[in-house]
Every structure is written in structure tokens, then in C-alpha cells.
């Protein structure tokens, strides 16, 4: 099948991937079904070893599935590789690609040639992208001297050289400090705003990042998709009650007075985590209020007048995506961090102890000058 305009940006059906390994084969993907619409910012959220990177490798034509089919805008990842490679690009976290001997600008130009841009067009586009990602001052700096954050910005620019219709971002903020990670996230948002209709598939195990950026998220664990939905939908799965944090100037009768109101499941005084022995006594009363549904809040507010209390602050508490993950899987992300099988052999081999002389062997491209 050739691509069609109506086709989903990503359409994966029954994808499995098993890596041959000793003593036992490793199942990285155990039947993934996924459909991402054109123009969607889609996230794959899961711990290390969930199979996110393996799925990206398959979708970017670098790896064949053991079974199942996957299509990008209707193009089959197994057979239409060249066409897919013309319309997609990818950036991974911690990427060290390119040649340290080149300047940032030269490195990007080299990659522009791999995507078919003309020589002049390549230089022009590279210069524009360098400015857009905020690397103007590092334009003529050698790649080997760029900081991790600068390097990732450069990688991001590389990923945009061919103006991709599908952009795969595999843990793009991995290893970046807070400021650099924010810059990269801003670039993602900015790019999406500039080119509506382009699709992003982001893998991450940073839940706040997925929550902030993605329109829909698939929670992945051990090669399976456990749930798909918008962040709000996913949170609603675990939020069966409405939880509010209510701060009052006073409350005659204490929280128990609220607990008796219709629709109120519980009302308890919040523990003040900031209060210490020397801390001044709090002048307000903070109540954690659990309601059967949001509409019960109106009754609570009305009742407060009768109790002589005035609202100082009111905020709705939402569950985090981690709560969703814990609910679905029965454990947190961190529980699996040392148990990775991400990408099958890849991660295991990356954890192998590497002899220093091998790990530090210089690239001949840099060396033999």
C-alpha cells in the first residue's frame, strides 16, 4: 500500500519484537496497537525497559518487527523505507552523532546533504535553524566543545533539516539540566506551533514532560500499552472522587462540620509539612476535602457562611500521571529502573563493563588529521 492523505500518521497493528539472546530471548514488544493522527503530539510514557525505544526503532525503519505491521502515513515500515525516511526525522537524548572536528554549522550542513538539500540551500537552512534553536554564538564552535545542552539543541536542528512530517523524539531531554531541558521543550512547542499538521511521537519517562507536551499519551510497560488517552482522561481513570484543598480563615466545629454535609466523603485537616518547632503558628485552617463529585462543592461553599468561615484559597488537587501508572501497573517507575530490557540487547550491552581503552578510543575521523 502506498501512502494516502487520509492515512494516520502512525498506524501500528499487533507489533511484537523479540530479540535473540542467551539464555532466554527477550520480548521487547508484546503486541502493540497504536494509531496516531496527523498533527498530533503523542507521548509514549513508560519506565526504562518498557519497549519505547524499540517501537521508535521500528517506526523509523531501523528495525523490523518480529510480527505485525506498522505504517507511517500509509507507508509500510518494512518495505517503503526510503519514502518514510524522506518524511521523518528523529532525535534521541544523549545523542553524540557527528564529528567533533567539525563546527556546529558544518556538521548540520553535512547532514543537510544527506536529506537532499542543495549546497547553498543547506547552508541557508542551517544558518536559520541555528538561530532558531538559539545556537547563534556557537555557530562556529567545534562540535566537540559544545555543552550537552548545546549539543542537544544542535541535534534538534538536525532533526528539522528536512522539515519532517513525523518527528520522533526519543527521550530528548535525557541528561539535560533543568534549563536546557526547558529550552528543548520550548523548541518542540515552538516547532509545532510553526508547522501545524506535523506529528510528534515523544518517548519519555519524565511524567511532567509528557503531561506538559502531549495531547495524548500511551502508558507502556513491558512491551504492552496499558492505557491511551489525553493526560486529563488518564488521570480521570484514577480520580474517582473530587479532591479539593480548602484554606479558610477559621472553621468553627473543625473539619467534622464539613464532613457531615451532603456529597462530602471526607474532610480532614491538612498536615502542614512546612511547620517546624520554630515556625510561627498558622493563622488559617487548611482542609483536604474529598467530594463524591465536583457539584457537591457548591453546598460546601454555601455551608461555610453558616459556619462563620471565609475562603482564603481553594484549589482542586489532581492525580499525577505517576498515580495513573501506579494504578495501572501496581508499582512506580523507579521500581523498574534497574530492571531494564529497553531495546532488547541494546541496553544490556550498554550496561556491559567496557574496557577503558575501548571506551575511550578516538574516532579515526577526529584522530587521523
Amino acid at each position, binding site marked *: 500500500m*502506498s*501512502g*494516502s*492523505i487520509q492515512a494516520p*500518521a502512525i498506524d501500528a497493528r499487533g507489533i511484537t519484537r523479540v*530479540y*535473540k539472546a542467551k539464555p532466554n530471548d527477550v520480548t521487547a514488544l508484546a503486541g502493540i496497537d497504536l494509531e496516531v493522527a496527523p498533527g498530533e503530539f503523542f507521548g509514549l510514557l513508560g519506565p526504562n525497559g518498557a519497549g519505547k525505544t524499540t517501537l521508535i*526503532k521500528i517506526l*523509523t*525503519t*531501523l528495525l*523490523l518487527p518480529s510480527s505485525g505491521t506498522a505504517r*507511517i502515513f*500509509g*507507508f509500510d515500515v518494512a518495505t*517503503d523505507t526510503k*519514502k518514510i525516511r*524522506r*518524511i521523518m526525522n528523529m532525535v*534521541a537524548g544523549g*545523542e553524540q*552523532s*557527528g*564529528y567533533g*572536528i*567539525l563546527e556546529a554549522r558544518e556538521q548540520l*550542513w*553535512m547532514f543537510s*546533504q*544527506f*536529506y*537532499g*538539500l*542543495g549546497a547553498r*540551500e543547506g547552508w541557508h*537552512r542551517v544558518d536559520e*535553524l541555528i*538561530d*532558531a534553536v538559539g545556537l547563534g554564538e556557537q555557530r562556529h564552535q567545534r562540535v566537540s566543545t559544545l555543552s550537552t545542552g548545546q549539543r542537544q539543541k544542535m541535534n534538534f536542528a538536525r532533526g*528539522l533539516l*528536512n*522539515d519532517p512530517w*513525523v518527528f520522533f523524539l526519543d527521550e530528548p531531554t535525557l541528561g539535560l539540566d533543568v534549563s536546557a531541558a526547558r529550552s528543548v521543550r*520550548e523548541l518542540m512547542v*515552538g*516547532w509545532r506551533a*510553526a*508547522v501545524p499538521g506535523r506529528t510528534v511521537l515523544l518517548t519519555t519517562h519524565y511524567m511532567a514532560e509528557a503531561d506538559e507536551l502531549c495531547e495524548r499519551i500511551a502508558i507502556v510497560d513491558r512491551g504492552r500499552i496499558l492505557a491511551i488517552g489525553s493526560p486529563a482522561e488518564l488521570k480521570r481513570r484514577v480520580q474517582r472522587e473530587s479532591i479539593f484543598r480548602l484554606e479558610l480563615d477559621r472553621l468553627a466545629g473543625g473539619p467534622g462540620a464539613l464532613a457531615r454535609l451532603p456529597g462530602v466523603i471526607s474532610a480532614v485537616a491538612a498536615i502542614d509539612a512546612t511547620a517546624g518547632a520554630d515556625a510561627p503558628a498558622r493563622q488559617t485552617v487548611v482542609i483536604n476535602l474529598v467530594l463524591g463529585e465536583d457539584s457537591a462543592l457548591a453546598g460546601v461553599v454555601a455551608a461555610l457562611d453558616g459556619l462563620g468561615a471565609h475562603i482564603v484559597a481553594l484549589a482542586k488537587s489532581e492525580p499525577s500521571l505517576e498515580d495513573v501508572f501506579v494504578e495501572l501497573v501496581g508499582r512506580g517507575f523507579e521500581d523498574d529502573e534497574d530492571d531494564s530490557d529497553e*531495546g532488547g*540487547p*541494546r541496553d544490556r*550491552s*550498554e550496561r*556491559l563493563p567496557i574496557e577503558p581503552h*575501548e571506551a575511550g578510543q578516538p*574516532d*579515526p*575521523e577526529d584522530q*587521523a*588529521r
Partner: protein
Amino acid sequence: MSAPKLRVFVGRPTASPQEAANWTPRQVWANNLRSIIGRAYPRVRGLTREPSWVIFQMLLPFLTTASFVFVYRALDAPAAYIGFVVIGGAMTAFWLNVVWMMAAQLYWEKDQGNLELYFAAPMNVMSVLVGMAVGGLLMSSTRAISILFIATVVFGVSFSISQWALLIAVFVLTLAALYGFGMMLASLFVMWGREAFHLTQLMTEPVYFVSGLNFPVGRLGFIGALAIALIPLAVGLDAMRQLAFVSTGPTGTPEPWIEALILVAMTAIFIGLARWLLHSMEERARREGRLTVRWR
């Protein structure tokens, strides 16, 4: 969150992914040609960016050449032998380039993460290999010409050339066969992984010996004949020596035109095998996940 001005991200607009995916044959050719230039670029830039190569790649090999010249002079060897050594020294630059910067290069690229990006780009990966070869040729030619020039001047080598056209053809064919050989090995190295580094050791001193880098290969009898049949360095070197020092007389090896034909055959076989191996390697890598496996 404030987004920067990113109108530039629009780049070369296409109406649909289908339009962007369907390239004309001209676009495909242009992409491959540009990829050759793109991949050659870092090698060419490296020539001017890190001039330390003058010492390590030119002066040090020159010392080896000089030591053989002094030995031959001490032994009162025929004057042509000095020229043999000088040509051998010049060709060393190409051989080292083929072994370390062609054969081993894709292995390095994999460890750097570049190989994955090459395969994920739309060009034919053969373009990357050809680009590496073109860049390597430019680098090595500079070194080889420098060694040849300095040694010729310092040691007073006098060439006696009768067939200029054939000599130039043999030189070009030798380079084509050498770099075809390197392109073929590049794919094998990726598949063999770190074991391949033992092969690079095997391909330096032993190959220098059987190729007769510093002496006429005909002296090795059967081993020399075998080297001429299998190793592009050996056959190219012998043919160039026969053509550059006509006065030496019979060398016990095939005529230069026969050796030129051997080089043509080698070039065709090596480049054909390189294409096939690269394709096989990519397919195998996609099946087994090898493109994503570092340090193997």
C-alpha cells in the same frame, strides 16, 4: 511557556507527506551525489583543521622509507630499488587510509551513533561509503604526493617511464581497487564487531610484507603471485614499479597491462561485493537489531 520565533522551521514546504515522500529519479540521484560530498566534507576539512597529520602521516612514514633506502645503499642494491621503496612509501598512505579510515570507519560510526542516522536518512548508504572514499583519497593523495616528492628530491630517484598513459591508468585503477576493497571491508567490520580490530592488525605489517612494500614482490615467488592475485596494493605497486622503472628488466611478475586487467576485475568485484554486503548488513541489522547495539 514562550516559544521563540520559529517560522524558519517551515523550511521547504510540502503540501502533504505523500508529496514529500515521492521523489523523482533526479531528486534521488541528486540526494546521493550530495551525500557523497557531505560525507567527504569532514575529511577534507580535517586536512586543514588539524595539521598534526604532517608529522604523523607524512614525516614518520618517511623515516621508514629512509631507513630502507639506507639499507639498500649500504648493500649496493640496484638504483631502481631506491625508487621501489619510495613508491612503496607513498602507497602506504593509501593503504593505511583504507584500513583505518575506510574498513574500520563504519564500526566507529556505529559506536558514535552516526550509522543509525545514516540509515535513517533517505540516501543510499553506498553514498556514505563513496563519500568516505573520496574524502580519504584527497587526504591520502596529499600525503602520498608529499612523500613521493620529498623522497625523490632527497634521495635523487630517477624514474624511467615509457608508458605514461598506462602508468596513470594503473595508478587510478589501484586507488579504485584499494578503496573498493575498503568499502567492502567496512560492511564486514560492522558485522564482525570488535573482532575486526584484530583484522586491522593483520592488514598492516603482514600485508606490507606480502605486497613487497619495500622490495620487488616477485622475490617472494608463489606468495608474491598469490598477493598479486588477491591484494590490490601488491598488484598495483608491482605494475607501477614496472612502468616507472623500465630499465630494471624482468621482475618475474605479470606484464603491467595484465596487472591492470587484474585491477579492473578487483575493482568490479570489490565494489559489487561492497554493495551486496552493505545491503545484507542493513537487512541483517534490521532483523537482529544490530544497528542499535553498541560496543559489539
